[in-house]
């Protein structure tokens, strides 16, 4: 039968043209969706991997910041670095506990010297590069960068930011006379009976039990050894470095050699080794007294520190900032 020029096919067909067209369309659609799935799946894989890497790194950075490492004194270098699990947290030697969010500068510097051995495979998975930068909040301090140098063309870079305190430990505070009302040590310095209280005249420092701010002497003893004198530079420092209090002065003496030789504070740290050496004489240990006079005026308050720095410490590093933990921004970067 022929209708309008088309020949009718009466024989059975396996595929009609419609079905074939539909199958082609389905095949194309399936192909496209499979391709899309493959693409999405590979992106998801990438994301999962990146997420896992970031998570592992973030966790390990937390461990690095919050633990002192194994062994706790690994920075002393008594063990091979391969067997050390690094941790930067500072340990309070008296209580044996870690100091919250405070890092030890000695550990940071040791990590700097042995970065790859301590970080790769322990904090960051092997095959990755990383570095840590410590930016001080206080601009008078320098930033510290340890680890690999980040190339300009680095691909994926994971960055972890934390705010921490860094304890320099380059100096030991031997004594502090803190005049500020806010600080607790004021109580300590005011409740000590000075050896000068038994003397008379100008040399007398009357005992002042009151903790209120008033003009007068605040005195504190500290113990010094011959080793301290020989191995360290001992400095007298004030915070702020330049005092508003024009009446402020200080005396360093001992019960054996009590004196009224008062000296004014300068704008820079004063080295005390010779003076202390004279007071100590041949003794291996000595108890020395620091006496500080202040006007007591609340807008002229200042703190006084005597601290020992290892011999040869550059003069520009003799700062009160190095005596107490300082805030830093920690930036940890990992890249492939």
């Amino acid at each position, binding site marked *: 039968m022929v209708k309008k020029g088309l020949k009718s096919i009466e024989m059975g067909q396996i595929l009609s043209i419609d079905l074939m067209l*539909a199958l082609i369309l389905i095949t194309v659609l399936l192909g496209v969706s499979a391709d899309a799935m493959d693409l999405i799946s590979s992106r998801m894989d990438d994301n999962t991997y990146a*997420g896992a890497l970031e*998570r592992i790194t973030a966790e390990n950075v937390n461990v690095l910041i919050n633990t002192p490492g194994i062994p706790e004194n690994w920075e002393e270098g008594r063990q091979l670095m391969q067997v050390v699990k690094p941790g930067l947290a500072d340990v309070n030697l008296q209580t044996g506990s870690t100091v919250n969010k405070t890092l030890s500068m000695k550990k940071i510097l040791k990590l700097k010297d042995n970065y790859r051995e301590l970080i790769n495979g322990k904090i960051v998975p092997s095959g990755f590069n990383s570095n840590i930068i410590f930016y001080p909040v206080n601009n008078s301090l320098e930033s510290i960068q340890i680890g690999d140098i980040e190339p300009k063309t680095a691909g994926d870079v994971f960055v972890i930011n934390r705010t921490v305190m860094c304890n320099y430990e380059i100096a030991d505070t031997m004594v502090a006379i803190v005049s500020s009302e806010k600080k*607790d040590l004021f109580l*300590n310095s005011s409740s000590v009976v000075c*050896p000068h209280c038994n003397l008379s005249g100008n040399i007398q420092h009357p005992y002042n039990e009151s903790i209120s701010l008033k003009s007068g002497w605040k005195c504190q*003893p500290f113990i010094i050894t011959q080793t301290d004198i020989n191995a360290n530079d001992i400095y007298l420092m004030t915070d702020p470095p330049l005092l508003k209090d024009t009446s402020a002065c200080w005396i360093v003496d001992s019960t054996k050699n009590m004196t009224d030789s008062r000296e004014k504070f300068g704008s820079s740290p004063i080295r005390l080794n010779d003076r202390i050496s004279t007071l100590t004489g041949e003794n291996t*240990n000595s108890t020395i007294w620091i006496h500080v006079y202040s006007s007591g005026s609340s807008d002229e308050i200042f703190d006084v520190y005597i601290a020992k720095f290892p011999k040869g410490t550059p003069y520009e590093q003799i700062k009160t900032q190095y005596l107490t933990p300082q805030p830093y921004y920690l930036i940890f970067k990992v890249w492939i």
Partner: protein
Amino acid sequence: MDQKGYVMTGMSFLLIIPIFVLFMVLIDINHANTESKSLIIKSDNVLQISRDLEYNIPRVGRQALKEEAYGVIRSRKPLVNSKKTVKENIQLKMDKITQNYNKDGLKVIYAVRSLKESEDPFLIEINSTIIIVKDNLVHEQYLDQNISLYDPKDPLPDPMPFVKCQNYGGVTINGSRICYGHSLVSYLKSRGEINSEVYENATSPLFIKKCPYDPFKAHGDTKNLDTLKNCIDNGYYHESNDAACYLCRLEGKSTCYHQGMEIFIVPAPQRNVSFFKAPCSVDHVIFSDNSTTIYPGGSLQYYVKGSLIFQLFLDDSHRKKYGLPPI
């Protein structure tokens, strides 16, 4: 619906399959991501709690010691087993802290393993265990820490003289010193000691403070004994093998086999020296637990103010320890 009753053709069904697969993969990835984030939060949480507890243990330990010491001072009754009592007090305080954490599936267990004397008598060792459980995450930590007995902001009192003098009229507190009134004289007389009158209105320091004059021989290195005078004025305690440690002082003991600390009991200043010998002015000698060991000391005038003479009575052994002239 077609004429044969099908909702969708086979072709449409085939088209929907990839969408299902895609949807399931998405759910699975999202679940894995959530799980890993939850693990991080749990881990941070656990670490933070552990650090909090670690920081709190020495602080709570001091607080417990202080409470027990003032408890002895108030009641005038010594502790029978100071380690056990202080340990229980610390455990109670720490349990209150850990209770605050025990919620939202978190379980915190703290236990004091031991409390013991340290080689430094101004420190007490505390060993503890912390277990923190959060779902399937378990953190177990063993801590060995020290409790410092000296804190200038919050000093610990010495309870021993209060116990020793309770049956002899008692003692009073004047500022940072213990005033014995007549009690020390009565106590020494009851033990048959001669010249005990020199201890009428004697005083000794109330709070534990470590002496900075180290070595102790430095106490005698000035002609006028200014160092000794300053040490007495400040009420400094000195390390001693013979004296009691702080935990034993809580039990009212003046001597023990641990490394301890001794203090001078200072007679009131007098206008003239009437006695050249009297019981030795060191607490573990005067309050000796053994009646045969109160030994005399020779008069040592360390300061004169107008007509008032300040003196101690020390035996040769203690004079040697503090670098003071022999009898």
